[in-house]
């Protein structure tokens, strides 16, 4: 059996429907809770063990030890390398890493903006001093 105009109900209906296209930059829809966006670091539990950096498939995370005894270290997070796979979050058994479901519009005009440092008690003379306690210091400005 052959029919003609099988998609007539669709196109007739669409005349009275709003287009399905999302007007993205003008209208933003809510991102799902589990969306894997920008990586967030909580300073408390982190011991600088480096498991996250070891498992990162894209080499986006790097742990730099400043003073092993005093537990001074910082993490360099390269957003432009990040695959947003979430392996670091799983690899971190201490729960120091999480991915934001809100921050996902990460385009920037300079390469510097893609390097984020997560630091703990950084020395001032190292020139890497971060923001206030716990806030990741970013070079985004």
């Amino acid at each position: 059996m052959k029919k003609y105009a099988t998609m007539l109900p669709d196109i007739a209906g669409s005349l009275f429907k709003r287009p399905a296209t999302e007007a993205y930059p003008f209208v933003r829809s809510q991102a799902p809770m589990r969306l894997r966006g920008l990586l967030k670091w909580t300073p408390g539990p982190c011991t600088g063990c480096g498991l996250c950096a070891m498992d990162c498939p894209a080499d986006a995370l790097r742990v730099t030890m400043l003073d092993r005894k005093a537990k001074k270290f910082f993490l360099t997070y390269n957003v432009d390398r990040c695959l947003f796979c979430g392996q670091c979050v799983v690899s971190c058994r201490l729960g120091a890493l999480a991915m934001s479901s809100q921050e996902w519009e990460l385009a920037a005009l300079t390469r510097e903006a893609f390097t984020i440092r997560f630091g703990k008690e950084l020395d001032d003379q190292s020139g890497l001093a971060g923001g206030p306690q716990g806030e990741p210091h970013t070079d985004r400005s």
Partner: protein
Amino acid sequence: MTENRTPRRFTIPIGPQHPALKEPGAFQFTVDGEVVTNAYVRLGYAHRGIEKAAEERNWIQNLYLIERVCGICSHIHALAYCLAVEQLANVQAPPRAQAIRVLVAELERIHSHFLWMGVAAHEAGFETLFMYTWRDRETVMDLLEGLTGNRVNYSANLLGGVKFDVDAAQADSIRTGLEFLEGRVRHYLDVVSHDATFLQRTRGIGVMTTAQADVMGAVGPTARASNVVRDLRVHAPYAAYPDFPVSIVTDPRGDLEARFSVRLRELFESFRVIREILDRLPAGELAARMPRRIPEGEAVIRLEAPRGDVFYFVKSAGGDQPERLKIRTPTICNLTSVVRLAVGHQLADVPMILAGIDPCFSCNDRMVQVRKQSDGSQELMTWEQLRQHGIEFYRGKAQ
């Protein structure tokens, strides 16, 4: 001006860049008037050297490399790799994890088949069907995004299990989404099997007999549309398929219409399996502990991807990196059939025949090639070199 023209015979290059192919594969079709008399294929335009690269990464890093073998069936590749590594390590993923793996795999199948139907309709010149299928594909992509956190590379797998659970709210949203999709699939099945103008482009076109499919080694829905009864989910059930069986869908006709019909009817099976999984999801852990070093050995894993069966061979030498990884994707098996089937058809049917197997060139090609403008020579770059090149390029720009 005229001496360059042979009067009736042309070689039509389709690809590496051509509007009919959204991916780079090069085909050359010799046409006599409108009829194809010869066909030739050349691959490698998207060859990324994944098999080699995998030998230089640890087992965990590879999981995400493997997921990028293909953009559409990312989950099934990661799953195949996980199962192979688990087999080597002699670790069994918990039943709940296996069920969630199958759940994502089936959602991915829905996504893949919708995408394919849109592309095939576009090749045929039925833009409306293309637009509507891709609109509806958003539904399943949203479901996947809500479930896994990403639209394409779900990264649902871990070595030894999965990353996330399915809660009641998510199960409900999946059920609602499936209901809508099921209605749509029913409608599309009606369209592709009854629409008179569409049938003119699919019925009796690109016919592959069962014997041909067997000899050419066709796999997946392409083979099943030629009445080859082969579906690894049924014949060699893996992950949670032993508990949530699917039934096989075949079609004896072997033409393009049959390929549409098989893929769409397969979706009803997917809907059913997903609902079953949601209804009786086994309780328990989400992941088993995995050693960082994998014992020596070889593992062979075969899974039914949306496009046909994928073959994974993983060899471990006992270290924290694989010794060898071999991936055989379904497209390479089916390409032989395109080259053979296209001969004798109208040029206008070629994009349809090509699309009919649901080709995926990125699956197929897994090195980065840089053509030097100055002397026309070619150079291959490793990842490190390419990365270094990128850094230097932008540094140069900034100054």
